[in-house]
């Protein structure tokens, strides 16, 4: 396999996160020769999604002390000319901190567990050791990052076996369904297989709860697609618009978020957010229904009635809501679950805008304003990369860029040097924040995102269907802390194995991820244990496995904060903390317009079915007529 890359490009893009990938697609689409590289063996950077063992490899990779690998044998200083200087890039990504893993299920391995899905290539050795010694992987207390293990013995091999059989059976059905591409909802097909679906009050059904072990999670690890960053797509948001406009949407499939939940007086409840929800709600009184509908109607065109809110414009939204005759629980719904704003910081005008946006996004694809991409958020950046490649962009993962080469006279960057010592020329360079060196970023103030990833056995709010996708905002408890966004994904999102849920928690950091999020985890879940004494605890879903980590939030950093970057080097940021992807899309579009002011941003490509191919002197085909080939073949 050829290792050396072509050496002349218009644009070199370093990093395959969402903004970089959108830019790559946009540049390639407008006829630029694009080289898109990533130092990792996977797409997406901090926007990636991993299988279970892939995630373990990722964790292990972060915990290893940076060694200047043999790969970088070619030293760049020898390759820099006298008229040039170099801006070195970072050798190792340092955007992830404070990783802590907790395993609550039995880690006894009853057989040789093998799972494909670990990060490939340069990580394969790491991955295989993770698979055979899961304990080891969880006990890493190398460098400063601490990792804890909670271990519960669970001698239940016989139940285990039958569980595995049923889960395999169901997977078969899932796979069958995958085969056809038509729209539809598969949840109904699943109902006969759903044994663990019971109403909340039915505590007698505990023995029927599925027993899940660590080895099962490993074995079914391929079923997981665990997002590093938990985001959703607003159905009328910028990303959906862009996906549709650019036709990149054809590479991905989505599911609607089915429920918006709220945490009110110690209980998880569903938020009525559409007209139908409001009318059907059993929790709301007639008066409340009327009040809420009136308020929603007002919000959809609040700009038309400035007199209604003028006096409150810059005052807190929560104060304004108090004047709207909404009961405390309704105020809570609107503030946290609909406007999704934390109490103190949000002005009335911003609150109204957020509420309007939420209401406008309802009903397009379903009963909530959000969509979730099947197989996880990581798919989206890959879809844009595919578009870039279709238009001639060249892709190379596992390719490190050692430095940017700057011409002293013009002050512009004219090339990069990769880890093989290859010099690659281009006119413009786009680099993701995490690749920039400490020196370049020394005056940048970064925020942090606190993340938790949980694997649980039941939904936080059980209903007839066990295939719900839910979003819950837990308001901050103390001042100075932030609201926590909880996203619960079911197995039909193709992000977790059957009979489990994948739960993502996200908030702006005030401390480490565990310190920020553990209290919310404790409110909603109970650790998985063999002996369950407390009856009341039974109603809570159980935690099988948990991971906490902090991720650097490099959004909203002004270009001028980076030291000494040439004018033709552009910086993309990593994921932000927000629920939507608006920041990434805006950034990509802004940078694209800056680099290519006269080009259109991601126009629709021609439909493959209408393309006339320039065959060798062959008469162009008339679009619409198709070669229909007749064949009689044995079925």
């Amino acid at each position, binding site marked *: 396999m050829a290792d050396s890359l072509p050496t002349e490009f218009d644009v070199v893009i370093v990093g395959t996160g969402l903004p970089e990938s959108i830019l790559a697609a946009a540049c390639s689409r407008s006829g630029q020769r694009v080289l898109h590289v990533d130092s990792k063996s996977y797409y997406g950077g901090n926007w990636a999604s991993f299988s279970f063992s892939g995630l373990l490899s990722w964790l292990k990779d972060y915990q290893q002390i940076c060694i200047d690998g043999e790969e970088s044998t070619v030293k760049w200083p020898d390759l820099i000319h006298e008229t040039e200087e170099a801006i070195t890039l970072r050798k190792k990504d340092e955007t992830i901190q404070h990783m802590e893993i907790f395993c609550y299920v039995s880690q006894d391995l009853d057989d040789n567990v093998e799972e494909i899905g670990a990060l490939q290539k340069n990580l394969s050795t790491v991955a295989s050791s993770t698979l055979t010694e899961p304990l080891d992987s969880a006990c890493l207390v190398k460098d400063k990052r601490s990792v804890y293990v909670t271990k519960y013995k669970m001698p239940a091999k016989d139940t285990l076996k039958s569980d595995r059989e049923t889960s395999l059976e169901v997977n078969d059905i899932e796979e069958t369904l995958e085969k*056809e*591409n*038509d729209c539809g909802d598969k949840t109904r097909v699943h109902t006969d297989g759903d044994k663990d679906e019971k109403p909340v009050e039915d505590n007698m059904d505990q023995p029927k709860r599925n027993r899940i072990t660590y080895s099962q999670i490993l074995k079914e690890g391929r079923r997981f697609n665990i997002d590093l960053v938990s985001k959703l797509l607003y159905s009328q948001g910028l990303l959906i618009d862009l996906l549709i406009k650019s036709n990149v949407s054809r590479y991905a499939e989505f599911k609607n978020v089915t429920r918006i939940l709220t945490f009110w007086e110690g209980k998880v409840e569903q938020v009525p957010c559409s007209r139908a929800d409001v009318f059907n709600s059993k929790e709301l009184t007639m008066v409340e229904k009327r009040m809420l509908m009136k308020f929603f109607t007002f919000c959809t065109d609040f700009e038309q009635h400035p007199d209604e809110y003028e006096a409150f414009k810059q005052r807190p939204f929560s104060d304004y809501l108090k004047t709207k005759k909404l009961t405390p629980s309704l105020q809570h719904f609107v503030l946290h679950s609909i406007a999704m704003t934390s109490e103190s910081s949000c002005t009335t005008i911003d609150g109204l805008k957020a509420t309007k946006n939420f209401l406008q996004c309802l009903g397009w694809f379903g009963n909530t304003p959000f969509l979730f991409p099947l197989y996880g958020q990581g798919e989206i950046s890959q879809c844009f990369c595919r578009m870039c490649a279709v238009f*001639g962009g060249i892709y190379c993962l596992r390719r490190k860029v050692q430095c940017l080469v700057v011409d002293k006279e013009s002050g512009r960057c004219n090339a990069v040097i990769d880890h093989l010592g290859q010099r690659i020329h281009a006119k413009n360079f786009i680099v993701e924040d995490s690749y920039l060196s400490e020196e370049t970023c020394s005056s940048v103030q970064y925020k942090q995102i606190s993340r938790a990833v949980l694997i649980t056995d039941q939904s936080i709010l059980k209903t007839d269907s066990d295939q719900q996708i839910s979003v819950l905002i837990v308001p901050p408890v103390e001042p100075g802390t932030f609201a926590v966004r909880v996203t619960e994904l079911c197995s039909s999102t193709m992000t977790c194995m059957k009979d489990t849920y994948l739960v993502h928690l996200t908030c702006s950091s005030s401390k480490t991820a565990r310190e920020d999020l553990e209290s919310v985890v404790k409110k909603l879940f109970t650790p998985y244990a063999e002996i369950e004494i407390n009856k009341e605890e039974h109603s809570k879903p159980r935690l099988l496995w948990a991971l906490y980590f902090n991720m650097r939030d490099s959004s909203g950093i002004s270009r001028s904060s980076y030291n000494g970057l040439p004018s033709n080097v552009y910086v993309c940021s990593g994921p932000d903390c927000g629920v939507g992807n608006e920041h990434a899309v805006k950034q990509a579009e802004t940078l694209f317009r800056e680099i290519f002011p006269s080009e259109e941003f991601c126009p629709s490509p021609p439909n493959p079915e209408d393309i006339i191919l320039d065959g060798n002197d062959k008469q162009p085909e008339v679009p619409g007529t198709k070669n229909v080939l007749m064949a009689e073949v044995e079925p």
Partner: protein
Amino acid sequence: MSMEDYDFLFKIVLIGNAGVGKTCLVRRFTQGLFPPGQGATIGVDFMIKTVEINGEKVKLQIWDTAGQERFRSITQSYYRSANALILTYDITCEESFRCLPEWLREIEQYASNKVITVLVGNKIDLAERREVSQQRAEEFSEAQDMYYLETSAKESDNVEKLFLDLACRLISEARQNTLVNNVSSPLPGEGKSISYLTCCNFN
């Protein structure tokens, strides 16, 4: 594209090392051309060919790698909703055959469990330069439970047979699934494709 145009729609995805003739196979089948103009693949996401098998119209959507295989950087999402995979190697290139296990690992990792995989040894027109014997390839494909075929995109040998046989297998598979699941209409897919959805805004 309306549903009435065809009875079945299948997504077929080509994989294999760079230079083994994947694009040539697609172009030969869909357009009867060889060699395809190099620049022509820019902007072509997939090729469509509708074939008729026993009176039923089968639309084949054939996806190429867009060059991402060159530096082993194929996106996972490329494999996601494929009904069939055509794993191609070059019979005159030992290296392209040796890479097959690596490709199979990718398939296992990212493609659906029920995907049909066909192993194709291309370039039989260059038989005098053959490096991979038919027997070796047959043994390998048997061990991996794959259907195996040797083709020449240049001479158009077995190219139609490859796609038509595949279409037949996909149809019978789809029928079986319909029977198993007791659903008469086309089976529901996993998710929604957002561009085709109609709006039903409640406001």
